[in-house]
C-alpha cells in the first residue's frame, strides 16, 4: 500500500530508536540527549537547509521553549503533552517576532541580528530570576505521568521513549512539509529569492513562516529537554548551543532531513567519547572538521553517503543530493552537489 510505504523512514527511525532502547538500557540519558539534539537539528534544517536562512542564534527558540515548558509545568499544569505545545508556541512566537528583524536584512547584518536576539534573551533570562531562576537555572520541573499512565522513572525509560516518539512524529511532519508546495517554495527561496519574487511569491511571508515553523520544532525540543532532565539552564540559550547545532547539521548535511539525524548522532557520540579529553583538543577536532566539510565535503556525511551510494550502484552523476549551503555567488564554478527532486522522491 502506498501510504504505508511512505512511512518507511519514520518506521525505520522508530525501530532504530527502539533497538537502542534494548541495546543500551544503562545509557538512556545519553540516548535521550541525542534524540532531543536530533529534533533540534531537524528544526534548524528546515530554517537553514531548506529556506536558506543563516542563523547563529537558533538556540533562542530552543531555550525559550525549554523555559516556557518548564515554567508551565511548575506553575500551571504538569501535563507533559500540553507542555510540548506550550514550548512549540513559545518557540514559534519568538521566531515570528525576531524574524521580522532578521528577514528584513541580509548578509552579516541578518546573522548578527540572530545572534543579538539570542544574547538579549539570555541576558533577560539571567536577570529575570523570579521566573527563570537566573544563573542557577530553573529546576524542580516535575512532570505528570505521560497520558496519565507512564510515570517518568529515574532510569529514564519513559523519558527516552517519550522523546523518541515525539522525534518520530516531528520527523514525519517535517517530511510532509518538505514534500509540500511550501517546502518546494522554501528551496526556491534558498536558491534565488529575487526569482521567486518575480514569480509572484510573497517571499518575506514565506520566510517568516518557515522561520516560525523551525522555531516551533526547536521549542518542542527545548520543552522535551525541560521535561525530561527536569532542569533548564542559561546555556540552552547560549551561543555555544547555537554553534553546536549548526555544526551537527552541517556535518550531517543540510537540506536532506536525515542528514540532521546522522550529524547529531555522530557529533554527540564523538563528543561523549571525547568528554574526558582536554577541551582544547575537542575544539581542535571540531574546527578541523568544519574546515574539512566546507572545503572538501559539500553536503556533509549524508552528501558523501549519497555520492558513494550512486557510485556503488554505477549510476555515475545521476543521484540527487543537496548543496551544503544556500546558493553560491553567481558566477562561481563549483557545483556543490545536486538538489533533492522534491516532486518525485521524498527523502
Amino acid at each position, binding site marked *: 500500500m502506498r501510504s504505508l510505504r511512505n512511512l518507511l523512514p519514520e518506521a525505520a527511525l522508530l525501530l532504530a530508536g527502539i533497538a537502542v532502547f534494548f541495546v543500551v538500557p544503562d545509557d538512556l540519558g545519553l540516548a535521550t540527549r541525542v534524540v532531543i539534539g536530533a529534533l533540534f537539528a531537524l528544526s534548524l534544517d528546515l530554517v*537553514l537547509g531548506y529556506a536558506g536562512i*543563516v542563523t*547563529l542564534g537558533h538556540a533562542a527558540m530552543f531555550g525559550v521553549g525549554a523555559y516556557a515548558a518548564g515554567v508551565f509545568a511548575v506553575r500551571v499544569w504538569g501535563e507533559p503533552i500540553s507542555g510540548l505545545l506550550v514550548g512549540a508556541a513559545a518557540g514559534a512566537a519568538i521566531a515570528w517576532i525576531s524574524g521580522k*528583524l532578521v528577514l*528584513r*536584512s*541580509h*548578509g*552579516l*547584518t*541578518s*546573522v*548578527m*541580528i540572530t*545572534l*543579538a*536576539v539570542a*544574547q*538579549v534573551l539570555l*541576558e*533577560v533570562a539571567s*536577570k529575570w530570576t523570579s521566573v527563570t531562576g537566573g544563573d542557577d537555572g530553573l529546576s524542580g520541573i516535575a512532570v505528570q505521568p505521560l497520558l496519565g499512565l507512564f510515570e517518568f522513572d529515574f532510569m529514564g525509560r519513559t523519558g527516552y521513549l517519550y522523546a523518541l516518539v515525539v522525534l518520530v512524529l516531528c520527523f514525519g511532519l517535517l517530511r510532509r512539509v518538505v514534500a509540500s508546495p511550501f517546502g518546494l517554495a522554501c528551496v526556491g527561496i534558498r536558491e534565488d529569492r*529575487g526569482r521567486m519574487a518575480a514569480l509572484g511569491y510573497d517571499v518575506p511571508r514565506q520566510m517568516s513562516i518557515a522561520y516560525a515553523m523551525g522555531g516551533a520544532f526547536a521549542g518542542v525540543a527545548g520543552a522535551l529537554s525541560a521535561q525530561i532532565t527536569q532542569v533548564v539552564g542559561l546555556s540552552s540559550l547560549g*551561543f555555544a548551543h547555537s*554553534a553546536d547545532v*549548526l*555544526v551537527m547539521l*552541517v556535518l550531517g548535511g543540510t537540506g536532506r532531513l536525515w542528514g540532521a539525524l546522522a550529524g547529531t548522532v555522530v557529533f554527540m557520540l564523538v563528543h561523549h567519547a571525547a568528554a574526558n579529553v*582536554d*577541551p*582544547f*583538543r575537542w*575544539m*581542535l577536532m*571540531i*574546527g*578541523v*572538521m*568544519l*574546515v574539512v*566539510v*566546507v*572545503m572538501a565535503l559539500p553536503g556533509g556525511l549524508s552528501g558523501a553517503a549519497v555520492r558513494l551510494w550512486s557510485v556503488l550502484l554505477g549510476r555515475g552523476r545521476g543521484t540527487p543530493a543537496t548543496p*551544503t*549551503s*544556500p*546558493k*553560491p*555567488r553567481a*558566477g*562561481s564554478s*563549483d557545483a556543490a552537489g545536486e538538489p533533492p527532486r522534491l516532486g518525485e522522491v521524498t527523502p
Partner: protein
Amino acid sequence: MALLASILIDSLAYGMILFIISVGLSITLGLMRFVNLAHGVFAAAGGYAAIFIAGQLGAGYELAALLAVLLVAAISLPLEAVFVRRLYRRSQLDQVLFTIGLVFIGMASVGLLFGNSLAPITLPTYLQGSIDIGFRVIPRQRLAALIVGLLVLGLLHWLLTRTRFGVEVKATVDLPQASEALGIRTSRVYSLAFALGAGLAALGGIVGAELMPIDPYYPLKYLVAFLAVVSVGGAASPPGLLAAALLLGGIETTAKYFASSYASLLFYLTMLAVLTWRPEGLFGRKEAR
C-alpha cells in the same frame, strides 16, 4: 563632572581599541564580501606573538610589539592566498562555517601551546602604572591605546585618500569588475588589505591588552563585539566603523559604571536597535539587490 570625564576617557579608549581591531574585518567585508568570524584570532595572535618574542628572544616591548604585528601580517598573506581566496565566491554560510572552524583551531592551538592562563608582557616603565591627568588617574596603557588609535585613524586616512593603494581599494569596493578592467590587480589589493587588517588587529590586541586581556578564548569572547561594531558601522566605512566603535564601546562602558550587570544587555539592544533602523549600518550603503 569627574565621573563624566572618566566615562568619556574609558569609552574613548575602549572604542578606539575596538576600532583598531575591527578595521580589518570591516575592510574585508566591504572589499571582498568575506565574512571572517576568525578575525579576533589575529588580535589574540598579536598578543601571544609579542609575549613569545619578548619572552623567548628577550626583545624589548616596542620591538616585540612591532615584530609581532609584522609577523601576524606576514602570516596572513599565505592564509589569504591558500584558503580565504577560495571562499570569496562561496556562500555566506560556507564562509561563516569555515571561519568558525578557524576560530576553534586558532583557540585550540593557542590553548595547547600556551596553556589556559594569561602570560602578560612585561611593560616598559613608561607604560606601567597610571598617570594623573588632572581630574583623574588613568592607566598609562589606556592612554597609550587612545593615542595609538588616533595614529591609526590618521594612517588610514592617509592611506585611503593619498595613496594609490587607497584609490585602488575604493575603486574595487565600488566596482570590482570595472576595476579589473582598468588594470587594478584586485587580487593584490585583496591580499594587501587582508594583511593590513590582520596587522592592525594584532596591534589592537597588543595595545588593548589592558582593557581586553588575552587568553585562548579571546577570539570567541570578543567575536560578537567586533562583528557588532562592523555591522553597526557599515562595511568598508572607516568613519562609520569609528562611530560605531565609539557608540557601542561608550554604551557598554557607561553601563559598566552604573549597572554593570546590564552592560551586555544594553550592548546587544543598541546593536539590535541600530540594525533595525538601518540594516546596512550607520554609514553603509544600501545594496541594490
